[in-house]
């Protein structure tokens, strides 16, 4: 699916409400891969503070992105770039990053553990490789001010000991999940549980952001389409047409196949022997011995 460059911004802002409402409605289709020589970049604002202006290579691409939003895709040339986030004319944070042709990445701005530090920007690559029918790739990324965490789906722990700056990926059936994030040490709830609707043929990325210690834990959800590859459900599984391995046979209709012919001959012989009486059988035995 190569649709090429479609303008600087054609994307989605999705806050936690998407979790409740189901993700479908707010999602704009994004190209599954970038045009030649281009890369696609999304900015995930996990600062949870004030709306920010997103400035890419010195050009303001979004004047005011709300907290917990996703900005993009921004189609940019392969090579080095600079992104800054600004509020009130002041730079909150910024970083240099480099993309290669065809890449799709997220720049995730999130707060540091020490509130006196400049917020960080972390790069995550979007895995847009195909998924199977009725499936999605679910990625949970830890960008919160919190210790290593376990991520649970429907009460089952599927991600263990995820540290800040780490992401884990799962192929999951498309449906609704209850997601919660708990500290790996102890069981303090970092987030949730929240309902997450995961649609087939998507890369669904969940970013845990904020700081549970001051009640600002939140999630940002990003949904990107990915190709679906794989066969449908079989109508039949025809795994034998020889009969050499058969241990029994269906007895209807004439049968001229070798095993059946042999069986029929044996039956005829048996009938003849029985009709011939016990004496003939005895004679046969005597001849053999």
């Amino acid at each position, binding site marked *: 699916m190569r649709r090429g460059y479609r303008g*600087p911004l054609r994307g989605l*802002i*999705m*806050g*936690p*409400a998407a979790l*409740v409402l189901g993700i479908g409605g*707010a999602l704009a289709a994004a190209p599954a891969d970038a045009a030649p020589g281009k890369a696609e970049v999304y900015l995930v604002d996990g600062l949870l503070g004030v709306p920010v202006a997103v400035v890419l290579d010195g050009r303001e691409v979004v*004047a*005011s992105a*709300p907290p*917990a939003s996703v900005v993009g895709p921004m189609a940019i040339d392969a090579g080095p770039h600079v992104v800054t986030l600004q509020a*009130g004319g*002041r*730079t*909150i944070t*910024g970083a*240099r990053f480099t993309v290669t042709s065809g890449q799709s990445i997220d720049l995730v701005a999130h707060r540091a553990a020490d*509130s006196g*530090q400049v917020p960080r920007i*972390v*790069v995550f690559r979007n*895995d847009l490789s195909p998924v199977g029918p009725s*499936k999605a790739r679910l990625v949970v990324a830890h960008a919160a001010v919190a*210790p*290593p965490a376990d991520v649970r789906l429907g009460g089952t722990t599927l991600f*263990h000991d*995820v*540290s800040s*700056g780490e*992401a*884990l990926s*799962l*192929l999951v059936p498309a449906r609704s999940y209850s997601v919660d994030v708990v500290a790996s040490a102890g069981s303090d709830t970092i987030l949730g549980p*929240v*309902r997450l609707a995961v649609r087939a043929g998507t890369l669904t990325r969940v970013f845990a952001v904020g700081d549970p*210690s001051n*009640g600002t834990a*939140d999630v940002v959800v990003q949904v990107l389409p990915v190709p679906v590859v*794989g*066969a449908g*459900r*079989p*109508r*039949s*599984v*025809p795994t*034998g*047409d*020889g*009969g*050499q*391995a*058969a241990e*029994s*046979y*269906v007895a*209807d209709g004439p*049968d001229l196949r070798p*095993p059946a012919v042999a069986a029929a001959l044996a039956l005829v012989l048996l009938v003849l022997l029985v009709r011939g009486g016990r004496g003939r059988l005895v004679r046969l035995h005597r001849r053999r011995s």
Partner: protein
Amino acid sequence: MTAGLPPDRSGRGAAALLAVLGVYGVALVATGVLSAIGFGTGRLPVREAAGEESVGRPVQAAPVVVPAATTLPGLPVGVATPSLRPSALPSASLGTDIPARPAVFVPAQVVLPDGTTAPVVPVGLHGDGALVIPDDVRTVGWWTGGSKVGEAYGSVVVAGHVDSATRGIGVFAELRQLVPGQVVTVGAGAHQARYRIISAMRVPQAQISQDAGIFAVDGPPQLILVTCGGAFDPVRHRYQDNLVVVAAPVA
């Protein structure tokens, strides 16, 4: 550990950064520039992005999560100065994609409890909806519509001939000997996964597609081995049943 990135992971991240993506350089130290330019707090009124710059509609904060973000304490905000040149900005750190545990892979071979080993190839469907079964009776097929080995949900389906009119008895004739408790191993390269057999059953061939459990995308992870079984119909050259062996991952 109370909060944030442990120092050792931070160091590991920086090392990975340099080793894997040299392009990110060594400018992490430039963080100091931002630190040096001072902080304040500030808050902007929300302005709607206009025209081509529109990025969609803002979504209300969810009732299930946290109060409106604007009620949060302000962030430390660096004061933009002419000294904040692009070259002075730090490189973005590289998020770590943790490999899936257990590994997720397309099976390349299957080893039955008696040591019988068969290569596995991906298979789709014929035009009539029948699963493609490799012609070579020593080779079996992995259904591409099902789960890969190691996925958290759904059936990994592997099917092979019990026999073939032209190629003789197949490797999956051995499935008829399997009993619950035995272990089947699937692998690919360095990857390997073990499954313990929990049941073996015969399903009428005409009904196998209606069995929701065999081709389940959802549900618990399981390995499904399929061949033919039951009485052979020499007229139609087919078996009446499919033999279905179900196995669960060994932790």
